[in-house]
């Protein structure tokens, strides 16, 4: 990330996001958004980690101190948005980042922000995940722009990710509205060439002017007035967007293709490969809410037909159809159904090429590759992952209390530990939304379910949305066991800091907010902190907890194994399997499910072996082996 450059003969070290205007660099879409924010002189950046949005804050945090700007993760997206909005009320430019489900978390506040508007520009980065690659739903957040009445812009590649981010602040300040910068995984995570622009010079002093009609939503008359204001602002969005060059047209053929975002690239390359540049006109929308009607009408006026090619829902298609109909253009609109473009999953260049070749009667050269069925490789919990041991102890304790695993639901939550749904544990019964494990467990109990119910939730998820549900469980005396799987980081999205961290994301000294400090004065019927690597202690603690009625909480705490390795440490001594003692009972496989253990064939028999490279010495396999066949490497056997 750090490269050396020569300026005026002096060698100085500088971050690639801080190269001078006119520089060219290879940036990931999210790094490009970060550079765009730097060029726009953004001073406050907040958000919550979520793939594929996290690298914006991660890369900005590397230069925050040098730039003297505030870049930190917030407890959740809503808090992050409100931090940004507060800065914007004071005239300071801010950026809030989140993945699509995070938009739902922040939505209460965002919808009201359309009525108050902003002073300093505010951009909300929302990263959707068609595929989906790493998200619980394929939410198409374009509809949210319409719901919240906030302008939405969509870049198609890293260069535009940077340019549009910068332009978003001009649009935002001219309309006095927050702007939604909507991306998809293939924009956020694509690396591409980016040319740098100037950094806007702003010397703003935060100044908050009292204006109750604008900022206090208590007056219904005031709210009505602000709604009228909002609608009139939206009416100006297209004009400014066109002036800023957000909507573009390529080629001048008779068949119009309306598209936006990363799909534009698939359309562009397909058209070049099919050699139909003279037949089409690509209308690439950068502003996708409100629909740039004048721009579209002007471009469609001499078209024979319109194809709308987009990912997920027929959002643009619905709007283009309505426009063509209401303006009586009398031209055919082809979209999802007629082009054979799926409503689910992400689009690919192959899907787009197939759709276009059908319309233009071209044949795409089929490459005759047959798919071969091979074993799937679902991501498991890592070797030595503390979560694996927590679930192991939970499942053991349920059995020890005399229950069948099929009668004690374990609610899961969002995080690495959700991978426990895979064999061999098949532990969690639900993974729903951030913090939902506790609420769902309460619901099951109050419905009259008479067996124990367990909610398992990660540390960051607990801070994010678990606390209100915990309060509910305690206040209503609900008989559930809540287990906080505390690995001291937001692991799944790339090890971001949590409120428990002593150092914040930009390296500031933070005041840790340990989970126990939040619950110590609450009337829990049972509370304990365990180390999941002490397996017997963990099982005994869970057994005790399951036998007590009422709200119970156990913190199972050990740092993410990947962080331990990163520090050059191990959890314990690495292990190997002594095949002279191994009776091939395979418990080290079926009770553990560790990616460091695999099978080899020796003397016609399948033996488990430990990949010494991958083993981090958690000792779990050693613990379950009934024949003492698993030994410590370098031990005395």
């Amino acid at each position: 990330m750090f490269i050396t450059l020569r300026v005026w003969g002096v060698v100085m070290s500088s971050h690639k996001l801080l190269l001078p205007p006119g520089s060219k660099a290879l940036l990931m879409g999210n790094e490009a958004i970060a550079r765009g924010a730097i060029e726009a002189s953004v001073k406050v950046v907040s958000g919550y980690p979520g793939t594929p949005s996290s690298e914006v804050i991660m890369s900005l945090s590397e230069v925050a101190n040098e730039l003297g700007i505030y870049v930190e993760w917030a407890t959740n997206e809503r808090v992050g948005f409100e931090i940004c909005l507060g800065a914007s009320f004071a005239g300071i430019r801010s950026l809030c980042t989140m993945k699509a489900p995070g938009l739902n978390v922040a939505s209460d506040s965002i919808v009201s922000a359309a009525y108050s508007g902003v002073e300093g520009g505010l951009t909300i980065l929302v990263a959707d995940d068609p595929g989906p690659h790493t998200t619980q739903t394929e939410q198409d957040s374009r509809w949210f722009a319409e719901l919240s009445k906030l302008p939405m812009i969509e870049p198609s590649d890293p260069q535009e990710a940077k340019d549009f981010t910068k332009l978003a602040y001009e649009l935002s300040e001219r309309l006095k509205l927050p702007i939604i910068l909507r991306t998809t995984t293939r924009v956020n995570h694509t690396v591409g060439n980016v040319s740098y622009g100037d950094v806007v010079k702003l010397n703003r002093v935060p100044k908050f002017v009292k204006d109750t009609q604008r900022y206090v939503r208590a007056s219904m008359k005031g709210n009505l007035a602000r709604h009228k204001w909002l609608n009139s602002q939206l009416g100006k969005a297209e004009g400014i967007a066109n002036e800023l060059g957000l909507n573009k047209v390529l080629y001048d053929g008779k068949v119009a293709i309306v598209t936006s975002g990363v799909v534009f690239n698939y359309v562009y390359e397909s058209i070049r490969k099919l050699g139909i540049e003279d037949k089409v006109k690509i209308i690439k929308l950068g502003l996708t809410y409100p629909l740039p009607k004048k721009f579209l009408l002007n471009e469609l006026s001499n078209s024979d037909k319109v194809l709308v090619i987009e990912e997920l829902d027929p959002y643009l298609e619905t709007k283009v159809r309505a426009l063509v109909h209401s303006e009586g253009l009398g031209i055919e609109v082809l979209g999802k159904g007629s082009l054979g473009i799926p409503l689910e999953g992400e689009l690919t260049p192959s899907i787009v090429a197939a759709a276009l070749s059908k319309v233009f009667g071209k044949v795409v050269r089929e490459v005759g590759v047959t798919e071969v069925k091979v074993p799937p490789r679902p991501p498991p919990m890592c070797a030595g992952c503390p979560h694996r041991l927590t679930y192991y102890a939970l499942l053991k304790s349920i059995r020890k209390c005399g229950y069948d695993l099929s009668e004690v639901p374990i609610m899961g939550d969002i995080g690495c530990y959700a991978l426990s749904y895979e064999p061999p544990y098949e532990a969690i019964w639900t993974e729903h939304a951030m913090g939902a494990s506790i609420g769902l467990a309460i619901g099951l109990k109050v419905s009259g379910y008479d067996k124990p119910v367990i909610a398992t939730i990660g540390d960051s998820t607990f801070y994010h949305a678990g606390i209100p549900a915990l309060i509910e469980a305690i206040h209503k005396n609900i008989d559930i066991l809540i287990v906080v799987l505390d690995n001291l980081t937001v692991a799944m999205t790339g090890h971001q800091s949590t409120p428990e961290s002593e150092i914040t994301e930009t390296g500031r000294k933070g005041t840790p907010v340990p989970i126990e400090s939040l619950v110590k004065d609450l009337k829990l019927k049972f509370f304990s902190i365990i180390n999941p690597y002490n397996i017997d202690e963990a099982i005994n603690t869970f057994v005790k907890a399951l036998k007590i009625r009422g709200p119970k909480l156990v913190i199972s705490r050990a740092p993410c194994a990947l962080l331990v390795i990163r520090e050059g440490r191990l959890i314990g001594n690495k292990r190997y399997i002594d095949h002279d003692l191994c009776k091939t009972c395979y418990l080290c496989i079926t009770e553990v499910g560790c990616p460091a253990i695999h099978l080899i064939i020796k003397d016609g028999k399948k033996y488990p072996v430990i990949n010494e490279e991958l083993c981090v010495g958690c000792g779990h396999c050693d613990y379950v082996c009934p024949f003492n066949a698993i030994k410590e490497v370098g031990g005395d056997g």
Partner: protein
Amino acid sequence: MVKEYNVIIAGVGGQGGLTLSRVIAEAAFISGYEVRTGETLGMSQRYGSVVSYVRFGTEVKSPLPTYGSANALIGLEPLEAVRVLRYLNKEVTIGVVNAEPIPPVLSALSVVKKWGSYTYPDVNELINIIRSNVKELYVVKGYEILKRFKASRSLNILLLGVYAAHPSNPLSSKAYEEAIKRVLRRDVELNLKVFNEGLRIGKEILKL
């Protein structure tokens, strides 16, 4: 300058496929190309299937290639290389594949009846499947070679070296070396040594 060149990198999370895609992208960028990378990865930090796409050339805009358009396949793990067959092209693709398997957890669990259908296939069978779907295939036992260098984390760079030796590869070794220096944060010297060992092996196989 080539119009379009597509590299597919297939491996297991933690093997360095993503880093390799950045190295090749940076080498193409240094060489003056328009570059795009894309990736398909699971939710975990490690051990899931990871596919990276690097595209460069004067006509490149999309982060994803079309099926059957791979000029090069770098397979860090044989099973994962078979998983990306639809991108390969018998008339075009040059493949470099590491023959040492990393069995998925599900394969070990095949000792239990209810999870029994995921036995890891025979490696030679996998290699043969790949071979019949590419123009040329080079098979190495990367981790074994890397033991000599105490560089078990550099499989990605070793395979890059082998691939870089092939005359159809449009980028120079100097560009790759510069890219390794820019992209890798750790062990740059060691990785340059590994890259050159890869080049040597590649040239030896090709009898250059």
